[in-house]
């Protein structure tokens, strides 16, 4: 029996390798979210059904493939994996359980910048959050950081760059931002869109449309572009004239939802304006880098989530609804359930409450639900 790290499972999922998962959490937890992947097969049997042995499920277990046992934290999966091991199965357990899976960030290089820098995407594969690091000339900017801030710090150390700017595209409602914590630790400037930050309890630098942010001496520009709709302050960034970071306004296969910070009815007009007018004026060659993905199909072969703006205008249904009424109906009539604890998450991101780490973890449980399709 061996322990498998979340990073190894992430690589298997990205490479679309076959994986058999015996998930021993209770049925409700399993139904809410699980490890997804094109070649992943699941079996869900709660650990407390297996305390007397595994005989009853033996007929359903593969004999010629490794079985990955998964639970919430790892304790129960070790117990069940031990039993399978004794019966001669090839078996492994997920170290740290779904907690580790939810918190794992897989760094993927998106590309080199024209004047010498690099752009990395951090894929939070268990939750669908995407964050970014732009490096240039010994400096780095981090965009939409998750609360696992040590990942960015360590990554920057490995690259030998210093984090000087930390940016959030908007006030997040589905996950806790690590922006402020990371900026404080690195001595960097923390940037927020002022219209999303009216109630925040800490100091920040205001993202204004005509003031670009420079990373390193070689001048990598991050140009803020006001693009409201998901939140009133939502701001996109054009990086190095080549990449468009869209936050939660535009995804690869869907568009942002306008109801998490206010009323869908009020912001649907802004959302349409951003998607159908402001983005339309930009170059079709820009590569869109969103803050989320919803389904594994949105991942490219290398694990990155990125596509040309021109391609999205051809393929993304949310960008191809000519009738304004029909658009209004799609984004206000079809809304998925709201993310777990989204009000508390917003309060946390404004600095109004300071839950401990375990509570933050609980708040983020489950899939993100920031899009309408």
């Amino acid at each position, binding site marked *: 029996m061996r322990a498998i790290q979340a990073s190894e499972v992430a690589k298997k999922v990205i490479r679309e390798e076959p994986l058999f998962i015996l998930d021993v959490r209770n049925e409700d*937890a399993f139904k809410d979210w699980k490890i997804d992947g094109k070649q992943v097969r699941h079996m869900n049997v709660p650990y407390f059904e297996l305390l007397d042995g595994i005989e009853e499920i033996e007929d359903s277990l593969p004999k010629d493939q490794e079985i990955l046992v998964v*639970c919430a*934290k790892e*304790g*129960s999966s070790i117990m069940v994996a031990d039993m399978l091991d004794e019966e001669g199965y090839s078996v492994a357990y997920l170290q740290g359980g779904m907690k580790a899976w939810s918190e794992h960030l897989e760094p993927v290089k998106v590309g080199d910048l024209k004047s010498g820098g690099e752009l990395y995407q951090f894929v939070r594969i268990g939750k669908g959050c995407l964050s970014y690091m732009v490096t240039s000339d010994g400096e780095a900017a981090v965009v939409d950081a998750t609360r696992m801030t040590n990942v960015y710090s360590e990554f920057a150390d490995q690259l030998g760059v210093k984090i000087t700017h930390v940016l959030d595209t908007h006030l997040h409602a589905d996950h806790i931002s690590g922006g402020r914590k990371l900026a404080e630790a690195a001595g960097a400037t923390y940037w927020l869109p002022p219209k999303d930050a009216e109630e925040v309890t800490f100091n920040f630098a205001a993202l204004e449309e005509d003031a670009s942010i420079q990373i390193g001496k070689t001048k990598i520009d991050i140009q803020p572009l006001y693009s409201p709709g998901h939140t009133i302050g939502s701001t996109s960034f054009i990086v190095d004239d080549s990449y468009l970071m869209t936050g939660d306004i535009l995804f690869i296969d869907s568009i942002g939802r306008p109801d998490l910070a206010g009323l869908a009815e009020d912001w649907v007009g802004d959302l349409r304006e951003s998607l159908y007018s402001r983005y339309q004026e930009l170059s079709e060659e820009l590569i869109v880098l969103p803050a989320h993905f919803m389904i594994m199909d949105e991942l490219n072969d290398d694990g990155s989530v990125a596509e040309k703006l021109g391609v999205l205008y051809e393929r993304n249904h949310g960008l191809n609804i000519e009738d304004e009424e029909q658009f209004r109906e799609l984004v206000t009539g079809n809304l998925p359930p709201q993310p777990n604890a989204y009000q508390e998450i917003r309060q946390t991101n404004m600095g109004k409450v300071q839950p401990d780490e375990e509570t933050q973890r609980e708040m983020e449980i489950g899939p993100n639900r920031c899009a309408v399709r």
Partner: protein
Amino acid sequence: MIQTDRMLDAKGLACPMPIVRTRKAMKDMLEGQVLEVQSTDPGTVADLQAWAKSAGHHYVGNVQEADVWHHYVRKADNGELQEKKYPVTIMNEQLTDKLREPNTVLLDVREPTEYAFSHIPGALSVPLGQLEEKAAYFDKNQNIFVICRTGNRSDMACQTLSEAGFEFVTNVVPGMSGWNGDTENTTGGTK
């Protein structure tokens, strides 16, 4: 303080141990008895409920005090599957009107824990095991309605009262499991 038959301390234990210990403790208990499990792992809340459901036990509820959860689980009672024998019954829906009549009393014969988490306002708690002893205090001319969770313990209680000479006794079915009216919870916890 909620009265139970036994307490299991699972504080500080991580999954799967709270369930493993609970399961073992339950084996030594009598049918219908209530076990209190104290735990600190938040995952225990959902898992104990799911385990109890799968094992046929009744998860009565829990109370959280600081970092400690107090869970209350009642051991499966095979008597609950037996056929009801006492002939005089009314449906839940008729009970509210009956209780407005003079000279009536409602006895709740479930365990004190079950009563504490949810009972009909005004109901008297008389656990089935104490009924014979307490029957001496009741007025034989009163209209007595008896309720439990699913109508079985109350069926036995009605028989006991009837044998003791009470003539105006009625079993309420199906009982609290199907009750949609007002309830009181004196625990401060959740069902």
